[in-house]
Structures are given as C-alpha cells and as structure tokens.
C-alpha cells in the first residue's frame, strides 16, 4: 500500500502554504478546508504542476525533495488527477479521451476500456464528442479516463463542485463504488462537510495554508480545531453510515449529523415519525456564545451533538449524567 507523505511549502503573493500530512495508502482521504485555505495549491504541488518546496513521497518513491533538488515531472509521478472542470480533451470523443489514458498506461496494468465504461455507465455515450455531454456525464468520463490511466494514487479537486443535489449524491456513490472495486487510494478536496463525511475514512483539515487536524475521520472531526473551521449551523458529529437510517441506500461511510437537526427528549418517545431514536447519556452541556446550549450525548453509535435552547435545558432537566433520547429525521441526513 502506497501512502502519500507530503510536506509542501509554497508562497503565492501574501499567501503562504505550509502543510505537512500523511494520506494512508488505503481508503479515501478528504482534504477539507474553507475556500482559500490552499487545498488546490496543495494538490497541484503533489501532482508536480507546481514546485513542492519541501518533499513528497508516494510509498517508497520520492516525488520531489527540495533539499536535494529533486522534482519528478508530473507525467512520471504515477499520480492521477480529476479536476473540478473535468478537462476532457475537446478534439476527441469520450472514447478517445479514455483511450488517451489507455495508450499511455503501463502495458501490464492496462484496464479494458469497455469494462470501465460499463462500470461508469457511459458505454452508450463513448462515441459522442465531449462537447455534447452533460456535466454529470463529463465527470464520469473524467473518472473513467483517470482510472484507465492506472495511477498509484488519485487526486480529486472538488470533482462534484459543478453538480447539483441528486447528481452530486450519485457521483459520490460512483466514487465510493470505484474505490471499493478498484482499491485505488484517493485524496479528495472538498469544502462540504456532507461530501467529506460521505467519502472520508481519513481527514486532513486545512486552514490558512496549515494543517490543523489530521486523522481518522470520526475522531478528527471531534477536535475543537476542526469544529472551529465549520459554520456553526454545520456543527455536528460523524456517525457511521450503517448505523443510522437515512432513507437512502447505505454505502456512505459517515453521515454528518448536524446539532441543529437533532431533537432531544427526556424520556423514550413513542409513535413518532423520526426514523432514528438513540438513547444515551449526557456527557456535557456547553453554553454557546449566542446563549444556546450544545448538548453532547453518548450513544451506542458514538457521541452526538444537539443544539437546544436554554429553556429546553431547564424544562427537561438536561444535565451531565442524565439519560436522554436523540431523535433524527432520515431526511436531515440527506444533503
């Protein structure tokens, strides 16, 4: 398994990127951070499109090391990249785009274009010029092209940024299936916590050019430095996708359970429409700046946050050590 070890240092005007992290050789690592935090620059440096100013290592192979003035050109790094805007070659058909990758892949590792096209459900549009494809179709062709290029590590720069709701979810599902079927390690850039939760086994969070948290997704998202990156309305916890009923097929790694979407009850509620009722013990009740209360409940699926009012805390007698029931609508888990 080829893990990715990087320490990138680069300066863009007043912006300074100094990021050191390790992305495991299995699973999907999400590179999370607000816009302007340097995620794309970091990806470009790993890909070799800009100098890395530090070092990058893929497994045992050194990709760049400024200390010994080593900088392997991008086409020899064995790293694939899927860009936000697909970047299909406009003078070629979808099939020719994928064949472009096929012809340049090592002969002993070549993947059958027909099979890959079947996998991404693009077999019927292979002979169309790429200008005629929809946004979703373009991204799937771009994924197929990257996969046929047989990289050792795949970088994805907000590949679903241009897609809306349903197609976005579908694309994430395709990414997960692709990872499961081909075992290709991925580093995915996103600024959406829901997308991150759906994909990530591992998290690297970036703020103003620095890595603030790195680690297993569920643990890393509980770090205060991570919470500080989030919009207060997005604050919540990661819950394994298999343990909650979200109304969609399981497959997403985690679901992001927002504190605003969790209702608390002081006794076991009955005859409710909420699909998920989780019993737990209150670990802590925090007072927030605006006067609201953030209650952390220890449940069988892990800690859960719920945001309630001061009055609710009083009326229900919510306090550390008390039992409480968290109610979650399935639809609150579909973003």
């Amino acid at each position: 398994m080829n893990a990715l070890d990087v320490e990138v240092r680069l300066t863009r005007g007043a912006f300074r990127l100094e990021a050191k992290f390790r992305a495991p050789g299995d699973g999907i690592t999400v590179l999370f951070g607000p816009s302007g935090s340097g995620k794309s620059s970091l990806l470009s440096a790993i890909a070799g499109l800009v100098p890395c100013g530090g070092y990058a290592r893929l497994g045992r192979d050194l990709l760049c090391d400024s200390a010994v003035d080593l900088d392997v050109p991008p086409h020899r790094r064995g790293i694939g990249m899927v860009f936000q805007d697909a970047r299909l070659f406009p003078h070629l058909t979808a099939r020719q785009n994928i064949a472009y990758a096929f012809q340049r892949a090592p002969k002993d590792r070549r993947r059958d274009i027909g099979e890959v096209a079947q996998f991404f459900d693009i077999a019927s549009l292979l002979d169309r010029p790429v200008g005629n494809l929809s946004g979703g179709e373009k991204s799937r062709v771009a994924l197929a092209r990257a996969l046929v290029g047989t990289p050792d590590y795949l970088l994805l720069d907000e590949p679903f940024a241009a897609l809306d709701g349903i197609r976005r979810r579908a694309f994430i599902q395709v990414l997960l299936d692709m990872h499961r079927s081909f075992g290709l390690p991925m580093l995915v850039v996103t600024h959406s916590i829901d997308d991150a939760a759906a994909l990530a086994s591992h998290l690297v969070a970036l703020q103003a050019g620095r890595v603030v948290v790195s680690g297993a997704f569920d643990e890393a998202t509980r770090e205060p430095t991570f919470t500080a990156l989030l919009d207060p309305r997005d604050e919540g916890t990661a819950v394994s996708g298999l343990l909650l009923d979200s109304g969609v097929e399981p497959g997403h790694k985690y679901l992001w359970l927002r504190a605003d979407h969790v209702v608390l009850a002081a006794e076991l509620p009955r005859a409710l429409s909420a699909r998920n009722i989780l019993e737990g013990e209150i670990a802590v009740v925090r007072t927030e700046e605006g006067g609201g209360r953030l209650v952390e409940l220890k449940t069988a699926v892990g800690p859960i946050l719920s945001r309630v009012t001061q009055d609710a805390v009083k009326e229900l007698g919510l306090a550390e050590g008390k039992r409480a029931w968290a109610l979650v609508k399935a639809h609150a888990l579909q973003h």
Partner: protein
Amino acid sequence: MLSAAETQILATSFSVASLALLWSLPLAIACAFLLARRFRGTFLLDGLVHLPVILPPVLTGFLLLLLFGRNGPIGHWLEQVAGIRLVFTRQGAALATAVMIFPILVRASRIAFESMDSRLLEAAAMLRAGPWDRFFSIALPLAGPGILAGAVTAFAAGMGEFGAVITFAANIPGQTQTLPLAIYAVLQQPGGEDEAMRLAAMSFTLAMSGLIGAEVLQHWMRRRLRG
C-alpha cells in the same frame, strides 16, 4: 485563357510559395509555442521574429545575400559541403519568401496556442503524457485551425513577395520569376501595361481567395472542434 508564359509564372509562384511554407512552418510553430509560454527572453525572440516586418524587404534580401551568398558564411558552407547554391535559384527565392512569411506564421500560431486552454496540457500530464507527447497530441491539434488559417494567409502572401526575393534570387523567368516579379518585368517594357493588368488580376484573385479560404477553413475547423 492563360498563355504558356503565364502558366510558367503561376507555376513558379506556387512552387516558391509552397517550398517557403514547407520550410517556414515547422520553425514558426516551434517559435510560436515558445512565445506563447512566456519564458524569459520572450521579447528578444519576439523582436527577432518580427524583424522582416520592420526592415525594408530589400534590406532583408541583402542580409540574406550576405549570409547565404556564395561568399557568405552559410552559403559558402552549403556549397562546399552539400553542393547547394541558393542565390539566384528557385530555392533561394523560396528562402527569401520563407523569411518574409515567417512573422505571419508565428503570429497566427501564437494566437492559436494562446487561445488554447493550457490547463488541458496539465490534464494530459496527469495521464503520463510527456512534454513532446503533450505538444503533438493536445497543443498542436487544438491550435490546428488557427495555424492552418495562418498558413493559408502566409501562402497567399508568399506568392506576392517582391523586395527580398528580387534582391536575393533575381528575376529569372522560369526560375525565380514569380507573379510580382513578372509584373515588374513587363512594366519595364514599353506597351507592357495590358499584360501587367492580366498578371495583376491573377495576383489579386489569388490573394483574395487565399484570405477567404483561410476564413472559411478556420470557421469550419472551429465548428468541428466544438462538436
């Protein structure tokens, strides 16, 4: 229709312009690609490329004589080593023409390369395509329409090159006498105006069809590229 002499003049013009284009185009494309990438010293190369536009064509021809003449450093070497003589030959006329149309080719190709989405080259690099590979598989096909249109324009212009050609290659019927040189020659003779008019009309028609051809070709190829 055309007299034997006129056919010969046309044939000479075509052959000189074709040869000039053949020699000039590859180098012009390479130059344009470098210029479009804006490396250090771009302005120096840019200036050098455009020299034939600024200099009087006679001076360009004279400089060619100095360099490629029988006693010039390159001309002498060519004759000794390869037995090639350029002055006062059709190849010489083509060389002078090649130098004159070079800026047109570079300009058109450069614009074509610059208007290409260079991020596609990055995408190609991420699919294991090296620099040469990327140039031939992505940059060249995408810049193709622009380059081709430039080539057609340059070809039309090449048929009409005068100053540099007559200085370097002289005005030899059947050898170096292209359309404009022939017009010049008949104008030197008393009563040559009628013939000059016929040649001028031919020259004008060719130039116009070159320009229109370039437009049509570019339009058609762009449409095909967009799919």
